[in-house]
């Protein structure tokens, strides 16, 4: 399942990697695992300038592109273009069962998003989605994404506890169902071959286990009450994630003018390798963090001084208004 940087091959555009995962975005990870389970050759391209876009993940093969936001997403695109279909050989009965179990992934996704975007895990969500964008737009986008999610989940200050309990209950019920299903079948969930359901569930479990979410109720529930699911994910982890670490020449496509975000038409083939050769994200040293913090404070202080100067510059002259206004020295 090694990726090949093939000029004529397939590219999967996802959000950047982190926490040992090939992509730290819980929405992009299922598509990446789907391609690996289907043994489809591809290489990852990382896009960090679209944290709030529904189009990611997207699959690109020449002029053909499949977006997550289109009906059926990446999976449907692969099926339609006859590039790969994990569910192709399923019997009708198994196909129906697959659809039923896929509906259980919705409460799992909701619970995961609720944990990820909680205040305690602000830094985790920041790192996954907006860390490659400059301040202050990263903060503004992060705030907006959190607000939209809470609106979608129906969580507000008045009903937070009740609504969270409701969401977690649905997620725990889903875990129960998947645990029971896993006991019945051997290697995979529905049949003796991996299906799209395996890709989605494995992505969820691997995310919960790998990302250090503070106070993760989902992780506690999984580890304590559903060891079969944990074992299932751990057994597949090495196979799915082994070749997923980005090569040293990979880099993140954040805003333009960062490492080679695009190529021009006249030299597109020559620049494709450069465009998909990102550098690994280097951890900031404490000195660099301190420098950034001081830099932001410096800019804020300058702006505040400028505003204060403009606002208060007229005050000394207001005292002169009474003396000069309409009086003659005569």
């Amino acid at each position: 399942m090694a990726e090949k940087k093939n000029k004529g091959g397939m590219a999967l555009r996802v959000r950047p990697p982190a926490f040992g995962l090939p992509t730290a975005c819980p929405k992009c990870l299922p598509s990446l695992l789907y391609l690996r389970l289907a043994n489809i050759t591809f290489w990852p391209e990382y896009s960090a300038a679209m944290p709030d876009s529904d189009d990611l993940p997207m699959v690109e093969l020449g002029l053909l592109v499949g977006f997550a936001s289109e009906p059926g997403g990446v999976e449907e695109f692969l099926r339609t273009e006859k590039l790969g279909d994990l569910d192709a050989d399923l019997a009708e009965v198994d196909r129906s069962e697959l659809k039923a179990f896929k509906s259980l992934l919705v409460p799992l996704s909701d619970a995961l998003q609720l944990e990820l975007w909680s205040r305690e895990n602000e830094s985790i969500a920041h790192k996954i989605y907006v860390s490659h964008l400059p301040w202050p737009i990263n903060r503004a986008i992060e705030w907006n994404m959190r607000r939209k999610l809470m609106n979608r989940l129906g969580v507000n200050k008045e009903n937070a506890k009740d609504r969270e309990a409701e969401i977690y209950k649905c997620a725990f019920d889903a875990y129960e169902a998947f645990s029971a299903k896993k006991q019945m079948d051997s290697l995979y969930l529905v049949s003796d071959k991996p299906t799209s359901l395996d890709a989605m569930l494995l992505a969820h479990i691997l995310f919960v286990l790998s990302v250090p979410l503070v106070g993760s109720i989902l992780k506690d529930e999984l580890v304590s009450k559903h060891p079969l699911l944990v074992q299932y994910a751990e057994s597949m982890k090495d196979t799915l994630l082994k070749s997923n670490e980005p090569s040293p020449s990979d880099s993140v496509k954040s805003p333009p003018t960062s490492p080679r975000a695009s190529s021009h038409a006249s030299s597109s083939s020559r620049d494709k390798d450069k465009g998909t050769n990102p550098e690994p994200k280097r951890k900031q040293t404490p000195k660099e963090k301190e420098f950034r913090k001081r830099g932001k404070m410096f800019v804020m202080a300058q702006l505040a001084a400028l505003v204060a100067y403009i606002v208060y510059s007229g005050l000394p002259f207001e005292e002169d208004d009474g003396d000069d206004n309409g009086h003659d020295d005569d």
Partner: protein
Amino acid sequence: MEKEDVNVRVHDIQIKGNKRTKDWVIESVLGKMKEATTLQDILLEAAKASVQMERMDVFERWVINFDVGPPELPGTTNVIVEVVEPERPYSCNVGMFSRPESRKWSLEGTLKWKNLLGYGETWDGTGCYGWDSTAENSVGVNFPRFRTWPAGFFTRVSLLSQDWHKYSSYKERLLGVSTGLIHDNNHELSYNLTWRNLADPSHRASKTVRGQLGHSLLSAVKYSYRLDTRDSSVRPTEGFAFSTSSQIAGLGPDARLSRFFRQELDFRFAVPLGVFNAALNLGTSAGLIVPWGKDFLSKSTPLSDRFYMGGPSCLVSELRGPFSLVGFRTRGVGPRELRRLVKSGNEEEVGKRDTLGGDFAINGFADLSFDLPLKFLKEHDIHAHVFACSGNILSLADRKNMTAQKFFSGFRSSVGAGLVIPTRMFRLEINYCRVLKYQENDRVRKGFQLCFSPP
């Protein structure tokens, strides 16, 4: 007084009639009048002050009078400035306009409020809505004088959305703050902080454009210098004009800001020919944008800041970079890339390309204008012209394989003739163009064209 200096100095300056405007604002306009020692100097400073008062545009009328100074101080005068502030300091304009690029018509409305705080400032809010769903809303304030500094200080907050979907498959939303410290006839220095978001709701974009979609932050300082000695910007017959604009983006400690350096140059030259009021106008423009920072050679420049060539334009009057190339459609020249293939989509969309813009652009033109032998046309300054223009636009990615022969063979060229109708509001040209040379994938527009340009 004409033959020799008359020694007079200013004893006192009195301001009357200002209910809202601060005294020091009017006093600062008077400049060095208090330091003047002769009547001639005082009158010169008064004339300069009149010009400044007109520029401020916050008074209905004003008059500067001189009165005899106190008897105990002979050779002195009191300066009395009487101003009348308008009863309604606000104004509103709504109109339908055609943009210089002439893509579509737009509805524009402007609300102005003058002297709200008494500093001689002008507040304005502008809303513009185009039929192609382009929208621009901005609020700004302009201080014509910043304390004792003669230069204006302005700041503007704007929310702008532009639809380039037809040409490059993306829509752009910009939320920005621009602040200028120097703004006079020749110099302009401004700082711009803009949050940009490029999106492609139609999912048609080419690979390069897809790679540039998303959010970015522009923090840039721009300096412009402009010198125009031509006798007219609508129909220049003599003189020259020069303009340079330098922009450096990425100012700030954050390495994630958009980082590039952008330079534009314009030069125009008009020579009178003496017969039929004819004049030969020559001009050239060039522009370059390069990224900076670590590994800058492997970086790409933002789509929004690249150079785009093509579209209806008036070669002679406009000084805004290497944008003009008559005979080609808007954004019709330069590197282009195939869009996404949608099998179930409209067949007309197959094979269409996105314009990617260029990092280096250069163009030049020659325009010969002359009067037509009709009295009516001469009276209204309606005249004819013939022109030729040429230009090229390249990407930095092409630099490695570029040779002089390739560079010169890549030039596009066109010729044409037409009628020019100069008005107070704009210059209208009705031209017939013929493209002599173009490159593969250029979008050519032959035949008759209309063009508007502001004076």
